[in-house]
């Protein structure tokens, strides 16, 4: 599975990755505009650099291993490919924005200005054979692209070599079930979600979702059973009352 390793300590914030991404995905008329203006992720920026505590931290969709957006999308417009990227099929989307609500990283963006808007997010350049354009654009190798297992090994190696330089933690390895975008950093990254027991979100929701049809069957059969039992009891009670009344009536007549 492919992944990206972002080394926060190596990034100089030159924004070349952002410019390359904007140019390659044709997100803005003038890609230089993206490079020279800092800004959050948006419908016109699949990746951006945020300044956190004096460091430059690249943000993008982290392509979770078990993405909650994929489990949330009601039409299945989002899929996790076996190669790693979480990709979006715009032709299915109805614009409900549940994926945005479900994303633990708040990394999915919407074309709010459009009258017929779509979701916008990084797709890890899944259709580009040479790998993500942002990685190629980085002049300092602050961002690496490769197999996730190998990148994890690289990250651990870097931590082992320079333990003073990094927090001893590969961000994205296990958070919310793990992601295909990993971070090495010397500061805590506040956007990393802290899910209970590092479970992925689908882990929390899927069992319930799968149980729902059976719940429906259960409810329906309980309803039918209850209705039948109570109707029968009412009928019997009525009959008894009628019989008692008839007997009483007969008795008084004779």
């Amino acid at each position, binding site marked *: 599975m492919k992944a990206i390793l972002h080394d926060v*300590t*190596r990034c*100089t914030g*030159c924004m070349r990755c952002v410019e390359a991404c904007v140019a390659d995905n044709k997100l803005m008329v003038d890609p*230089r505009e993206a490079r*020279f*203006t800092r800004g959050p992720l*948006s419908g016109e920026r699949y990746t951006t650099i945020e300044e956190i505590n004096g460091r430059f931290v690249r943000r993008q969709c982290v392509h979770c291993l078990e993405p*909650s957006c994929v*489990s*949330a*999308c*009601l*039409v*299945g417009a989002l899929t996790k490919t076996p190669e790693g990227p979480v990709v979006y099929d715009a032709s299915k*989307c*109805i*614009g*409900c*924005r*549940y994926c*945005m*609500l*479900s994303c*633990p990283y*708040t990394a999915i963006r*919407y074309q*709010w*200005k*459009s*009258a*017929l*808007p*779509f979701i916008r997010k990084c797709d890890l350049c899944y259709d580009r054979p040479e790998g993500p354009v942002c990685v190629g654009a980085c*002049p*300092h190798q602050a961002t690496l692209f490769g197999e996730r297992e190998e990148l994890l090994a690289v990250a651990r190696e870097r931590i082992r070599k*320079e333990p003073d*330089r990094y927090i001893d933690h590969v961000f994205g390895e296990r958070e919310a079930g793990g992601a295909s975008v990993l971070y090495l950093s010397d500061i805590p990254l506040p956007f990393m979600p*802290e*899910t*209970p027991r590092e479970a992925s979100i*689908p882990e*929390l*929701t*899927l069992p*319930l*979702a*799968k149980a*729902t049809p059976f*719940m*429906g069957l259960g*409810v*329906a059969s309980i*309803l*039918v059973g*209850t*209705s039948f039992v*109570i*109707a029968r009891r*009412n009928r019997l009670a009525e009959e008894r009352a009628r019989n008692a009344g008839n007997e009483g009536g007969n008795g008084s007549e004779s």
Partner: protein
Amino acid sequence: MKASRVRDLLFVLVLFGVVAAAIRLAEGLGATTGLTDEIPWGLWKVVNMVAGVAIATGGFVMAFAVHVLHIESLKPLLRPALLTAFLGYGSSCAALLFDIGLPHRFWHPIFYWNEHSFLFEVFWCVLLYFTVTALEVSPIALEGSKFKRVLGFLRKIGGPVMIVGITLSTLHHTSLGSLFLVSPTRLHPLWYTPWLPALFILSAVGAGMLMVVLLTLAAARVRRQPAPIAALSKAAGAAAIVLGLHLALRIADFANRGAAGMIFSGQWEANVLILELLALGVAPLAILAVPRLRRSTKALAAAGICAVAGVILYRVDVGILGYLRSGAATYRPSLAEIALTLGIPAAAALAFLWFVTRFKVFTFDRRAAAPRSVTSFEPMTRVWSDVFLDNTDRLSLIAVVVIPLALVLFVPGLGAAETPAAVQAPRGMDEARAVLLIDGDRDGRGVLFPHADHKERLGGEQSCAPCHHLDRPGDRYSSCHHCHAAMDGSRPIFDHRAHVASVAKREGFTGSLAGNRTCSVCHLGDSPKNGEDAKDCVSCHREDMRMEKEPPSRLATGYVHALHASCAGCHDAKAAESGRPHLGDCATCHPEE
């Protein structure tokens, strides 16, 4: 208030909503709503859908009471409850059509499935249940009509349809709660709990029953008929039990998660939660626990209003307010958003009034006991029925007043002068501040900007517009890089005419075609002759841009300069003092060299 005034008010709300809906369709969500990437679900989804469906639960609860538990005494409330459900679900679906980004694709979930999505379950259950409510309500409309066989068929399938409806309702009311289980980290811990599905259905059932009580009371009052107080107090008592169960479960949940301390933390979220628990739990319980109050219409109405407001607040808390916690996220619903949120239920209320006047919904109502025949079309006086258009002139007047008002309110800038004022330079400004400290590239870093110098070189008073555009509010000056872009490429401020003249002079071209001969000096390709095929500035202006040199005073630094001079130098000096990783080291940037 007279019934006709109520209708007028509803009509006004509907008109506002219609205008808002039109603007939404024309301009898109960004222009009409306060939604953001952080708060992607707003009033339309949370109030109209999640809360709207919750207060329309009366239909399935009454169907359960009458058709499953066979409680005959509640039968008078069944029809108004079914009608409430039909119109409530109808208006929720209508609101969703405006809320989703691509309304013309609303049918997609029928063909594209993701059965692991709670929203998918909600979609299907709501779609099917809406159909079920239509089947449940249509016999009321068909009574006394000539469609006897249709009516007979509908009555025959009535029982199973009710059972299907109750099942679907149970599923989607739990699923509506489960929708928010996807946000264990984003939703505030006051509201995020794995018990959301159970809490949602309990609160919906309790408040939905009280909603039916409220509507029945209102209808009885409008039509000056005695309300069926026995059935109402029975339903309200049951609702109180359900709401009590909900409140107990909420408290148990707080205790279970160890979150009880947060309730009285004084955070605004906690205070909203207390208000919500008071309205949805404590207040209706306190009122309905007293048997004497259960028989008073006023007390029943008070309990009902509390519970309905409480359940709406609960949904808004979970769906919107609970997501604001990061502090960075804000959500300010726009006027158009609020107008549509109110307009759609107002339309449903008008439909309710029309329905109860025309058909036998309230069985205790003797006046509607005999269904009237459909009014014929009367072009001179009444157009359709006596409810909607009983006073065409008055309603037209309302429309004429409301629609322009709505347009002015909802479309920002409508009616404002279209021609912008010219840029006015403040007098004496250049003398006072020849050099300004500005955030030239909007990156939060100030640079000293020689304003007077720029003005002089670019042509005095005529030169304001390239940077200052128009004098509109919020219209900011251009960033520095608009002109001072990459210095090793072609430049947007490149003065072509001046270069033609100076190149001709330098190369010694003379005569009338001197200018034409200069083209191939810079444009090396065949065509087109534009910025793309021109030589880099640096190929002539090498002296001005030598990397060894300090950056020329009036030109912006390039990245090489920035990184080598501005960054590396300082890092060299600081690395020794701070003991932190030496980022000025060549290997930081050039690991393989």
